[in-house]
């Protein structure tokens, strides 16, 4: 484990570089294959509408994976992540066009803990609405 960020260099409120992650239907098909989650709400519009969704939605775990990248890109070594949790509050709706949807993720250091660990709080939005709640990671810094 080799974090590239030093504990002494961060303070409560330190912002991590924000990132945006585009997601199209093709992204979801690919994620379905890689993750083994073939729930049709993530690729079949007819099925999604039948179960009361506005359209095909992204896998919650896809959004969780993208949000994690803001933390892992910052810290350098993903092995420095000690804890990571989210609540799925709203779906990321992915229309069937070339643009798809955009997941925008920002994060900041919310607490400095013992043993060089920090708690990072994340915010993830799509179409202007929060899609994750209680999104937090604990990371061990250098």
């Amino acid at each position, binding site marked *: 484990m080799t974090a590239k960020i030093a504990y002494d260099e961060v303070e409560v409120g330190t912002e991590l570089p924000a990132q945006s992650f585009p997601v199209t239907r093709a992204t979801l098909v*690919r994620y379905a*294959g890689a993750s083994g*989650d073939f729930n049709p709400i993530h690729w079949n519009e007819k099925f999604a509408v039948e179960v009361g969704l506005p359209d095909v939605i992204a896998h919650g775990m896809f959004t969780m994976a993208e949000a994690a990248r803001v933390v892992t890109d910052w810290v350098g*070594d*993903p092995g420095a*992540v000690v804890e990571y949790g989210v609540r799925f509050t709203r779906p990321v709706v992915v229309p069937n066009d070339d643009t798809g949807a955009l997941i925008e993720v920002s994060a900041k250091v919310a607490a400095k803990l013992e043993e060089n660990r920090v708690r990072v709080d994340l915010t993830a939005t799509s179409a202007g609405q929060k899609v994750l709640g209680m999104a937090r990671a604990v990371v061990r810094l250098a």
Partner: protein
Amino acid sequence: MALDQSFVGRSYPPTAPYEVGREKIREFAEAIGDANPVYLDAEAAKALGHPEVIAPPTFVFAITFRAAEQVIGDPQLGLDYNRVVHGDQRFAYTRPVRAGDRLAVTSTIEKIKSMAGNDILDIRGEVHDEAGEHVVTAWIKLVARAADEEA
């Protein structure tokens, strides 16, 4: 119908080991668009002190969810999976998952709650490697929406 509280604390037998492959990690990293070399290149992983390529933090979900399906599909529990949505997900890592790991998952029902007709089920999956060492624990919260919502 509310789920039977007597299932709280019930553990299911460990799953057969899942062998983590380098190419499966690569496929997953590409699917989330993450080109971090620590997922793709054993030398880059070694430079950070890992013996092998490691997996992105959420990679293990596929393994723990498969294990949780033992619980979800337990006919005695009687959860209606057609009404289930993924509420929360959390992981606590002792170390990152890496290529070559053979991982077994032991699932335990941690909590059952009934709120406004919704059933809320918390399942903990303890993931151990072949040596029996703890790798990661995954908590999944599933919410089964009240049946009459669809009427």
